[in-house]
């Protein structure tokens, strides 16, 4: 083939330059803050909050407005905390609860995912159980504890039943809204490329619904955790072992306020810890690859 004439080459070079210039002008710029600044920015404010809370607590205690058995000093709670750390019971207590929550949550994911898909994709299922699923989400799962105790006795089944009823609706609803929020144009992209239903679901629909699904999972975890605590506080028995809820109940039974507060602090630490270590990084990654959250 003959080389293109000089004019064609010049025109093409000009076009290439114009395109390159436009690209340089239009490309969104991202400024990244260094890691240590990000870490500092993320940790300093909550640590400050914690310090303020403890100082206020200490001041309130020192004012002696409340009797000791209602409001212990921060130091007393720390001592109680130290005790269970030293005798090692903190690990078994925490693990009993976390293990249950994790198993319950995973089972909930396994149930809620196909359920959510059905509700999102089958019109009849949506009208039939969609409202029920939303309603269940606003029903506090504590309400199920007495019934579950009557049905299953003081067994693990009771606890898992309550956990599942707490978290399945959140996860399923998250998936449904994730699917509902997929821009219809993405489905059309698959259609014009001749994608079948299965390929379209796997390559387009499900990845597109991931942010909503993940938000549902995060909420589902929180609901699993709080349902578990409710169940453990109400349904206590020797064969159930001592989880965080039972530990809290024990403290309350013997009027040990420091024990009760230690338990609450532990419940909080686990809840926040899982959120920070598992869900936040996952969600951040998913949103960032989609350009949905500003890289901080």
């Amino acid at each position, binding site marked *: 083939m003959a080389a293109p004439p000089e004019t064609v080459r010049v025109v093409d070079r000009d076009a290439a330059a114009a395109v390159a210039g436009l690209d340089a002008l239009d*490309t969104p710029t991202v400024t990244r803050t260094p890691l240590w600044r990000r870490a500092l920015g993320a940790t300093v404010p909550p640590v400050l909050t914690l310090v303020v809370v403890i100082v206020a607590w200490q001041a309130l205690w020192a004012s002696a407005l409340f009797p000791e058995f209602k409001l212990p000093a921060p130091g007393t709670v720390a001592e109680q905390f130290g005790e269970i750390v030293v005798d090692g019971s903190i690990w078994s207590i925490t693990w009993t609860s976390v293990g249950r929550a994790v198993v319950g949550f995973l089972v909930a994911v396994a149930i809620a995912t196909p359920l959510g898909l059905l509700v999102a994709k089958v019109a009849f299922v949506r009208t039939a159980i969609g409202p029920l699923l939303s309603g269940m989400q606003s029903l506090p799962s504590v309400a199920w504890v007495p019934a579950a105790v009557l049905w299953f006795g003081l067994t693990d089944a009771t606890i898992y039943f309550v956990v599942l009823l707490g978290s399945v609706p959140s996860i399923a609803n998250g998936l449904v809204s994730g699917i509902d929020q997929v821009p219809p144009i993405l489905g059309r992209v698959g259609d014009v490329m*001749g994608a079948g239903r299965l390929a379209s679901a796997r390559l387009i629909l499900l990845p*597109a619904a991931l942010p909503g699904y993940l938000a549902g999972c995060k909420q589902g975890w929180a609901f699993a955790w709080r349902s578990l605590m409710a169940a453990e506080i109400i349904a206590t028995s020797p064969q159930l072992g001592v989880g965080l809820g039972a530990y809290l109940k024990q403290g309350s039974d013997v009027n040990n306020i420091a024990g009760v507060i230690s338990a609450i602090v532990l419940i909080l630490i686990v809840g926040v810890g899982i959120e920070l270590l598992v869900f936040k990084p996952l969600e951040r990654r998913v949103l960032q690859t989609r350009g949905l959250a500003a890289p901080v």
Partner: protein
Amino acid sequence: MTATLDRTQVAPTRPAAQLTGVAKVFGTGAGAVTALTGVDLRVEPGEFVCLLGASGCGKTTLLNLLAGLDRPTRGTVDVATDRPAVMFQEPALLPWLTAVRNVELPLRLAGVGRSNRRGTANELLELVRLDGQARKRPHELSGGMRQRVALARALAATTVDTTSGDAEKGGRLMLMDEPFAALDAITRDVLQGELERVWRATGTAVVFVTHDVREAVRLGQRVVLLSSRPGTVVREWDLTGTADRRALTGEITDHLREVISTHGRAA
């Protein structure tokens, strides 16, 4: 001898797409909307045809028929390739995939192997001058760059055809539904030039829908003017060998005005 002659004469005349007496009615009874009626249109292999018309005249409906997404109420639609590529007004890229993986998508859906599709996708990105941006995600690209990724993806789609395969380039067809309408004027101007270059390089037949007369006249070898409600072909202009495109722009604009004004009088 005659057989050989027949083949050389018949084979190239199979159009890339042909509509004959096509009508499209949405709904039935009193609420029925006639979007298209009596549309005849023939697109030769490698030809660049611009469909021009006011909004609501059935341009998108016509493209959907060509794309096989919808069936005509009357008439026949004949498209040489079984998989024409479609480009929309929005880039419609998958936001979680990098540019190169977006371009690979049609190949992936067609079952092309990993290394083959990566090779094709990289070539096409180079063709649209985005070879340096292959690993960026859509949100890291400008609007014009995204639309070029979409162009590369559409081109990738034209390379997969289960019936005729790669050999028969003549069947390739790209359907574009106002692809530059959402871009700013400068970017649009540059991309029009880029599309022209890519079209010449690939030899794909293009049906390009627009409501912008200047865009139609700049890009098209043929401009087809559609009327509105119901949409039908009012007039065609063959632009090959037209020296004075500016004068023609004026002429077509006048016709378009006339078509639009009839609706004001009817109402």
